[in-house]
């Protein structure tokens, strides 16, 4: 007799309005990238329980749980709580693995054996969000180069595999392996990092902002063939940024400003691409293609960022992006404000690029001669 078909949850599409890129076809009531995001959650939660020095065992357990789902669900039907099912299987696999090795090492004394298997409910609730963010903070270790932090976050928090990371960062798999090996070696030697609210992790907030910004930029600067694939990096940056902004540890004006900046830049993503696949300059872009929803979200976050007494580079950059998004045409852009903003940005985050950008804005505002005058005495960086 034919077996009963797979349980279809029939919840329809759960596409997130914040997501820029289309994912896998949603036929199972699972959100886009469910497996990939579950992988990140499993790694985050399990490595908090047993310590990040066990990251490799944790990643193996998460991978094996997803493989078990792939094998079991088509036959037995999809469980009603897929996340809880995956967690149970991954948790058991990890404990089994650690127990096998505990003859030599006494890890279980401290962790797995005494800790009761968590209730599915607690896994699904806020604790999980904390774990995911905690893992992101763990990745942002100042002892690691940015490239390693980024690769580690993409692997553990976002759930991309080495090949996918290499593809998205336009580098070789060997290079990604090298970056990850360096990161894992570091994690094996760091002491327990404690909770998200604790001082060692909370002090990494600026690095977390930095890595999200880097993640977004990697996706944003893509051209031609890789556009759709690299846009996923923008999605990940927005997803994690939102998570951060909703958590006490990240609920600061800078996070809101960063989200504003990312949404406002994302609004122009589609319009930046020419039919031939190249990047279009601002003047060539069809402004009707700008994504109004992204602009709305960006302006909302910009409004929420306007508090406190810290003016971050994200505030200023979001302000500049907003000027462009709100201008009805290139000619009607408020170039005076843009030029002033670049001067401000140079005080907050000095860079020769700010002078160049300001000169361009001044040229649009007062004419080329005035623009060039801005560059008087300007020494291009060596």
């Amino acid at each position, binding site marked *: *007799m*034919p*077996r009963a*078909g*797979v349980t279809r949850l029939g919840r329809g599409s759960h596409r997130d309005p914040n997501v820029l890129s289309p994912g*896998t*076809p949603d*036929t*199972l009531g*699972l959100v886009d*990238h*469910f*497996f*990939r995001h*579950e*992988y990140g959650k499993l790694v985050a939660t399990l490595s908090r329980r047993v310590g990040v020095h066990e990251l490799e065992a944790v990643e193996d357990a998460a*991978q094996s749980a*997803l*493989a078990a*789902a*792939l*094998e079991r*669900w*088509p*036959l037995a039907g999809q469980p009603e709580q897929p996340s809880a099912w995956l967690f149970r299987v991954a948790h058991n696999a990890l404990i089994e693995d650690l127990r096998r090795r505990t003859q030599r090492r006494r890890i279980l004394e401290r962790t797995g054996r005494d800790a009761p298997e968590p209730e599915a409910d607690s896994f699904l609730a806020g604790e999980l969000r904390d774990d995911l963010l905690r893992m992101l903070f763990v990745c942002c270790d100042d002892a690691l180069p940015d490239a390693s932090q980024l690769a580690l976050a993409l692997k553990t928090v976002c*759930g*991309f*595999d080495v*090949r*996918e990371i290499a593809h998205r960062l336009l580098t070789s798999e060997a290079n990604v392996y090298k970056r990850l090996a360096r990161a894992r070696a570091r994690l094996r030697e760091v002491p327990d990092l404690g909770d998200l609210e604790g001082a060692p992790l909370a002090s990494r907030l600026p690095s977390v902002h930095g890595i999200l910004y880097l993640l977004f930029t990697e996706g944003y600067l893509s051209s031609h063939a890789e556009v759709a694939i690299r846009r996923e990096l923008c999605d990940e940056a927005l997803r994690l940024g939102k998570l951060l902004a909703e958590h006490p540890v990240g609920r600061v004006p800078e996070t809101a400003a960063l989200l504003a900046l990312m949404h406002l830049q994302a609004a122009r993503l589609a319009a930046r691409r020419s039919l031939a696949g190249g990047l279009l300059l601002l003047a060539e872009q069809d402004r009707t293609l700008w994504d109004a929803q992204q602009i709305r979200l960006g302006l909302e976050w910009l409004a929420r960022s306007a508090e406190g007494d810290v003016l971050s580079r994200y505030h200023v950059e979001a302000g500049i992006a907003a000027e462009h998004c709100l201008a009805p045409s290139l000619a009607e852009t408020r170039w005076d404000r843009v030029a002033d903003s670049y001067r401000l940005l140079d005080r907050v985050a000095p860079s020769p690029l700010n002078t160049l950008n300001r000169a361009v804005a001044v040229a649009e505002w007062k004419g080329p001669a005035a623009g060039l005058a801005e560059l008087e005495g300007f020494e291009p960086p060596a």
Partner: protein
Amino acid sequence: MPNYLCVQRSVPSDEARKPSPDEMQDLYSRFTAWQAKFEGQLVDLGGKLGEGRLVTSSAAPDGPFVEVKELVGGYMIVSAESLDGAIEVARECPGLVSPGSGVEVIEIRTS
């Protein structure tokens, strides 16, 4: 319609590697779509096969068949008008026919 036994066999390949989470979800989506398409023909989705032993009249155990668990991954039973029809069902099954894996389709004779 006759039934056919489909036996998954591993095929030597360098390309076999673990799928990423995104790839697994894609495989899962395609598998359920395949299941829906051939619903009427899937007699038994079977499952994975574990360790085994060959039992013969001879007292010697196993013999050359010790490798069976590494060669045979799983089985399922499909019904089809013909061998070619059964092959089509198996061929379209996501992940079954891929680098590192092939499927042997055998008619189950009942008369």
